[in-house]
């Protein structure tokens, strides 16, 4: 007869379930393209913002008639354009402008879209109806055409006017997306519970619902950034983007509207085009990786 030894079940260590951020981070790191894109983006941003000290805009835009349309050389890394200005310098400045302005447009339209989406989704009813009718109407308008029209007719046209015009059209997409999510969140228990407890509405929205939307917001922000840079460069290419005096990557590409330049002087427009392409692709890869992170079915890791 032996002693019965009672085995005590070991105390389970409680594991912290991964937070949103760590899931996003983990997914990002698993995706090789995303890592490559992050590195590229990092170097890119250092390049264009670090160079503020190094490259003087006036120097670069000085017209040098002796060096018109020169091919790439040691002096001018990417050659010169038809007024003798250094292409590489313009590339850096243009990239800085395009990115900064694209970034501002994205942040502003996100702020407005988020706010209105939250209001419409949370309060529902008449408020939601009115806002949605308004949004539906704006969505019908021909975006590109109207932006071009406004750019042409606004009297004192500058960078801020451009940002304002773009933001005015772009916030609606975001608002619609957020509103749909908020409508779903609203029905969940924690919101109902908070309401019963008497928590003021703004607190429920800011501290309850908003954090749960954070992953969608981040993904949307990233993908929008890529899209907005694309729109801005496209508009500048057509000549209806940034005002004169604020070079953008698109203005560099616009020299390609001349078939002679397109064919023979490739260094004037090709580098800018490739940079636009790579930049937008990089931001997109990061955004797609983040998007996969939010949808558990598609995760790689």
């Amino acid at each position, binding site marked *: 007869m032996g002693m019965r030894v009672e085995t005590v079940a070991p105390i389970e260590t409680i594991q912290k379930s991964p937070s949103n951020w760590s899931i996003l981070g983990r997914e990002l790191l698993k995706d090789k393209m995303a890592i490559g894109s992050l590195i590229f983006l990092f170097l890119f941003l250092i390049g264009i913002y670090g160079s503020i000290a190094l490259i003087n805009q006036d120097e670069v835009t000085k017209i040098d008639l002796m060096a018109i349309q020169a091919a790439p050389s040691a002096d001018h890394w990417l050659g010169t354009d038809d007024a003798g200005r250094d292409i590489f310098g313009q590339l850096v400045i243009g990239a800085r402008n395009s990115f900064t302005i694209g970034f501002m447009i994205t942040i502003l339209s996100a702020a407005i879209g988020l706010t209105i989406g939250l209001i419409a989704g949370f309060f529902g009813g008449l408020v939601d109806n009115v806002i949605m009718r308004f949004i*539906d*109407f704006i969505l*019908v*308008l*021909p975006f*590109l*055409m*109207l932006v*071009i*029209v*406004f750019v*042409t*007719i606004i009297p004192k046209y500058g960078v801020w006017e451009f940002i304002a015009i773009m933001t005015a059209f772009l916030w609606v997409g975001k608002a619609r997306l957020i509103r749909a999510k908020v409508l779903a969140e609203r029905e969940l228990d924690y919101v109902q519970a908070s309401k019963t407890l008497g928590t003021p509405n703004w607190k429920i929205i800011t501290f309850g619902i908003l954090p749960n939307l954070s992953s969608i917001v981040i993904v949307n922000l990233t993908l929008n950034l*890529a899209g907005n840079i*694309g*729109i801005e*460069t*496209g508009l500048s*290419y*057509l*000549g*209806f983007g940034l005002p004169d005096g604020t070079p953008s990557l698109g203005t560099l*590409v616009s020299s*390609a*509207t001349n*078939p002679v330049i*397109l*064919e023979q002087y*490739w260094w004037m*427009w*090709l580098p800018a*085009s490739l940079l*636009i*392409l790579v930049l*937008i*692709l990089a931001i*997109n*890869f990061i955004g*797609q990786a983040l998007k996969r992170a939010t949808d558990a079915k598609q995760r790689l890791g």
Partner: protein
Amino acid sequence: MWKFTLRRILIMIPQLFVLSVLIFFVAKAMPGDALSGAIEANPKVSAQVLEEQREKLGLNDPAWVQYGRWLGNLFQGDLGKSYVHKVGVTDLIGSRLANTFYLGVAILILTYVISIPLGILSGRYQNTLLDKTITGYTYLSFATPIFIFSLLMLFVFGFRLGWFPTSGSVDVGVQPGTWAYVVNKFYHLILPACAGALVSTTATIQYLRNEVIDTRLKDFVKTARSKGVPESKVYSRHILRNSLLPIAAFLGYDLTAVLAGNLFIESIFGYPGLGQLFLQSITQRDFSVVTALVMLSGLLALIGTLLSDLILSWVDPRIRMG
């Protein structure tokens, strides 16, 4: 069903109304008016004569009167006179409309021809190299801005390789109405249509892929397989049919893009359509044409949305919005 249609059309009317008011006032804000073209032709006209003309044309009437007149003209098909070209706007648009229409239809057809097979293949052979390649392609095509892609295609295929013409919709000197004309027009369409289609395939491919993956697991597919239906038939008859219908709804949205003029493509390929007309008119400050084009665009967008909703609700009765 008809109640739904009627309700949607009824909602569309105030939207059209607000659209026209908005565009009218934007047009008023634009510098220049109906006499600008005439002034250019004859700059020596005295200010007094100009004033009299303005009075006669009713340009000094209160805004809402002018709006009413403009709207009335619209319904009769009179879109005003172009400032620059001295002909009616309607004539200008008419000649370009056909071109834009052909381009739009070509892009639409190509998009579906490319994306439907790719989407199904991608879903059927999920996680194979084929799937990964196609998915990679969708990421690339989603991200690439259309004007860069068009530019690069023009450069590579038009200029460097010389395979395709680089501008215009038809060569000069080809007689309209002949078979050679049709072929020539088609030839000019290929490059811009490819450029447009290749970047528009993303949504459809991804959607089809997901649909195929989901449908594959459904019971009726297992039943078909166990009955001995050959695999390819399982796909083409059972799975495809289920997946295809909602795509028809996207068709409505795409229709609006058909006539939106595809500004970038037309500009880069020098294709004489509505988009190019719009850009030229803006540059020349020819605002009567601009106004007409914007109005047209908005109208088509509304119709496209309506069509899309109709098809969606016809296809899936659950979606019928009461």
